[in-house]
């Protein structure tokens, strides 16, 4: 039952990622074709463009949502692959805890970076 719920969340996270990462990829890597959300022109990673996107609260919120969805989807997928190798039960438990700690740690760090980045951009 628990695994069924986690799998359902895995699929839901995949749907969120498909939309948000698709948008992120289009902004960052199809810029010559689409040129969206790069108001300063030039390259999408130029500081002026980073600031322009960072000033938007909507962008900041979607960064955090994408971060959470991608960490869960990726680390749960990795857990499934590792569990298929049939490790001993204590190792399964240890792996789960390591992945939870990595996920929660990176989520807190990434959320801090997105929020402070939003404040830095707003002051620029």
């Amino acid at each position, binding site marked *: 039952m628990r695994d069924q719920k986690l799998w359902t969340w895995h699929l839901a996270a995949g749907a969120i990622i498909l939309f948000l990462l698709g948008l992120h990829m289009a902004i960052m*890597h199809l810029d*010559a074709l689409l040129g969206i959300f790069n108001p300063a022109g030039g390259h999408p990673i130029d500081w002026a463009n980073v600031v322009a996107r960072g000033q938007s609260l909507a962008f900041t919120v979607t960064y955090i949502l994408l971060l959470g969805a991608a960490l869960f989807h990726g680390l749960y*997928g990795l857990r499934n692959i590792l569990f*298929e190798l049939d490790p001993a039960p204590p190792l399964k438990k240890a792996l789960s805890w390591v992945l939870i700690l990595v996920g929660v740690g*990176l989520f807190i*760090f990434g959320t801090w*970076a997105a929020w402070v980045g939003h404040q830095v951009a707003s002051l*620029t």
Partner: protein
Amino acid sequence: MEKDRRHPNRLGIWGWVGGGSWGPDRYLYTLHRITGLGLLAYFLVHVVVTSSRALGEGAWEASMARVSGPLFVLGEYLVFVAFAFHAINGLRLFFAELGWGIGKPIEPIYPYRTCLDDQRPWALGALLLIAVLVVVGALDFFVWH
């Protein structure tokens, strides 16, 4: 004597590519896993690298300078290709998981009509869309810039 914990039919990583006469879906499955692991590895580093924008323009520019150059452009393109494959094939798997477009269950008699008539066209359509994205991505990465 230690009890054998292994389950039958569990081939481990070897089973991704070998251990039987696999059809095309098995190789899509293998590629889905390889691209997923690659994207996860990139993403974990990406979170750390891009967090430098929280420290201001100087830190951002220094951070971006460390990951620039032709090799990184090629690497980013491979990430784009992995994303295109994982996203589109993942969408196909999402529909299959929900039972959409995979045909009615019938007795599995060779040549497996539901597989050939209902599921294979989805796989071919997905591959076609991935190919288009890979080409457009290559143009954007290497030609239009």
